[in-house]
């Protein structure tokens, strides 16, 4: 009566673990465009090209009244674009229409006073909070930016940039 029970025997987990490690190593080893990679190639299309950034007017973080957005978050975006030899193509709109555009793939990045407690997490990937500011109710909040869901190379690159330049 033992054989059916012991079908899930010792060699199988061991073999599977080794296979998993091998597959993981093979997967990571054969990437040329960086690891983690973007399923839709967002960072690749930005590098040496155009960064399509969407901002909403949210002083003091973003002032979008002028011809070109200003404010610390706009500067961070310019710095990120420069680091990747990219031109910034600005879109100024409401947060909701920016998020919709980001989800459709019409934007690469959205900013404008977004925080880590933003409710947009099912539409966009939020970065880690890069700096702490005082929120509208006087409580401390952490500022974040949004990139398309699952574009993990883009997310990692932006988070690395914000880690270096984001402290206010």
């Amino acid at each position, binding site marked *: *009566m033992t054989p059916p*029970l*012991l079908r899930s025997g010792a060699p199988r987990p061991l073999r599977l673990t080794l296979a998993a*490690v091998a597959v993981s190593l093979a*997967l990571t080893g054969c990437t040329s465009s960086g690891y*983690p990679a973007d*399923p839709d190639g967002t960072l690749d299309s930005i590098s040496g090209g155009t960064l399509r950034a969407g901002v909403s007017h949210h002083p003091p973080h973003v002032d979008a009244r002028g011809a070109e957005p200003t404010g610390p978050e706009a500067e961070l975006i310019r710095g990120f674009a420069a680091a990747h030899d990219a031109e910034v193509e600005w879109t100024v709109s409401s947060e909701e229409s920016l998020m919709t555009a980001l989800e459709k793939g019409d934007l690469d990045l959205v900013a404008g006073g977004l925080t880590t407690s933003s409710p947009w*997490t099912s539409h966009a990937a939020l970065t880690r909070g890069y700096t702490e500011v005082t929120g509208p109710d006087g409580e401390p909040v952490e500022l974040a930016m949004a990139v398309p869901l*699952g574009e993990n190379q883009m997310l*990692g690159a932006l988070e690395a940039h914000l880690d270096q330049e984001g402290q206010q």
Partner: protein
Amino acid sequence: MSGEQATGGAQRHQADLPDDGRSPSAAGRRFGATELPPQMQRVVKKAIVLEWVTLGVMALTITAVGIVMGSSQAMRAAWIEDLLSLIPPIAFLVAIRVINRPPSRNRPYGNHRAVGVGHLVASVALLVMGALLVVDSALGLITGEHPPIGTFHLFGQTVWQGWFMIGIMLLSVPGPVILGRMKLKLAEQLHDKVLYADADMNTADWQTGLATAVGVAGVGLGLWWFDAAAALFVGASILKDGLSNVATAITDLADSRARELEGTGPHPLISELEHCAQTTDWVEQAGARVRDEGHVFHVELFVVPRSAGGTAGGAGTGSHAAGARPAPVPVDVRALEELRGRIVDLDWKLEDVVVVPVTELPQEVRPSPDN
């Protein structure tokens, strides 16, 4: 003397058992009225230690995964599954305490059913875990959900969170593999289905851990569907395990015939004890109703005694009672008790045994061609 009186005698004998000083190790762990043989006592102790170790390992894993999971849906699912896998060990530890109580006037069958209830609870946990995985990952695939996996900022370095997830998931594999295999062995010896379901849960744990590690590695390659596909694959097998365990648990609680641990065939002890009765010289025919109370079986053995005239008269007491009833067959109570004693001695799982003399076997205990 009627059959009912003889049955009553057997039950009184059963009720007297704990007090008659038959076993010197009465202070040890017991399954209700059943005193466990010393090697079984050791198995139970080992199982209890294993389950506490499991709870400890799971607590560590849950803490570690909770720290690295971030906003990742895949890791959150893995974390919820880890929480679910706490249920079977707890069910086992509760059941093993409850069944320790001997039968009483109010609980004449003992508390063995606690094991059946524990098995049902553990099976449902397994089922829910499988269903969660399947539904969650299928939805992710259908809606084209691209899992975001960000970075950590550690010592001035920005490191991809995926590495930590893969590391933690691979580290979480060996524990359940080892524990699950040890439990499977003990489950067989104890005929403990809670432990069996828990071993299945451990298998589910390490498989999910591996699948998550491979899935995250695939996501890192830019294959957004990899994590969900791996989870779906593993979830389907867990769901299947959960369904078969729930089915076994329910049919056991609904008094189906005692079956082997994995719920496939009838338990071999049934034919063994029937054979023991059938080869007794004064027995013409015998058939048993055996239900699984948890670790132990409840046995009702129906015997048709040979008539006083010898073998030839047996035809009259057989199943075809056409026409006038034959003369009454005398039943020797001591012979019934002796038969009962031999059946109890067959296996430690057989303790609650009732021997009922009848003139004709009930339909449901007659041998059928399909078993």
